[in-house]
């Protein structure tokens, strides 16, 4: 079987067209099929024993890692949200505290201010009373002095005009004039 057909192959390239299609040279079929079987068995064994389990493991590991990382990221996000909430709470609390402190400080200041104002008012009132008294005194003093001056002047005038300087009538006259 082999001799007739292998002849065609052996004669080589220059006669290839005449002897027919290499694909239809049945003498080479057992050879090709044998080596194909060997190749397929080797590929199958390498794939099933080594390559495919390894790649599958790597892919599974990667998807596991990605899942874990995503979970961790989610956890961190939760933590961040919590931290933000705590921060906001603290901020609100601090704001309240500050407002309270401001209010109490304001109240204190207001109290001090009121006290100071009251004191100042009292002082002012006292001073005013004192001043009034002084003014009254001075007014009274001035009136006396005016009366005195008027009497003296009246007496001098009366004397200069040749009349008798009656102290009693002069006083009465001045008093009447001052009143009038």
């Amino acid at each position, binding site marked *: 079987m082999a001799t007739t057909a292998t002849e065609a192959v052996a004669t080589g390239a220059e006669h290839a*067209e005449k002897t*027919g*299609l290499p*694909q*239809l040279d049945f003498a080479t079929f057992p050879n090709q099929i044998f080596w194909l079987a060997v190749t397929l068995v080797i590929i199958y064994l390498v794939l099933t024993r080594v390559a495919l389990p390894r790649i599958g493991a790597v892919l599974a590991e990667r998807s596991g890692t990605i899942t874990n990382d995503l979970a961790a990221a989610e956890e961190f996000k939760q933590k961040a949200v919590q931290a933000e909430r705590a921060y906001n709470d603290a901020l609100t609390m601090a704001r309240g505290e500050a407002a309270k402190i401001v209010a109490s400080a304001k109240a204190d200041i207001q109290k001090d201010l009121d006290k100071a104002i009251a004191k100042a008012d009292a002082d002012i009132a006292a001073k005013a009373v004192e001043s009034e008294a002084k003014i009254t005194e001075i007014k009274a003093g001035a009136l006396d002095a005016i009366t005195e001056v008027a009497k003296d002047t009246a007496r001098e005038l009366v004397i200069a005009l040749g009349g008798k300087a009656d102290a009693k009538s002069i006083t009465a006259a001045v008093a009447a004039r001052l009143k009038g």
Partner: protein
Amino acid sequence: MEGDIAQMGKFIGAGLATIGLGGAGIGVGHIAGNFLAGALRNPSAAPGQMANLFVGIAFAEALGIFSFLIALLLLFAV
């Protein structure tokens, strides 16, 4: 080789057999064109149908390849 009527018949037959490849061309073009028309109408569904596209093209092409094979057989094997 001159005057060899059998040889002439072989060549003519092989040439005629290659006409069959035109049919494969029509078939493949028809499938691809219709796929494109459908894909333009609904682009989101197109990637899922790539496998069907290739299987269809393969079936259409196989019949053309048969006539190519007949041509080869006529040229080299008969």
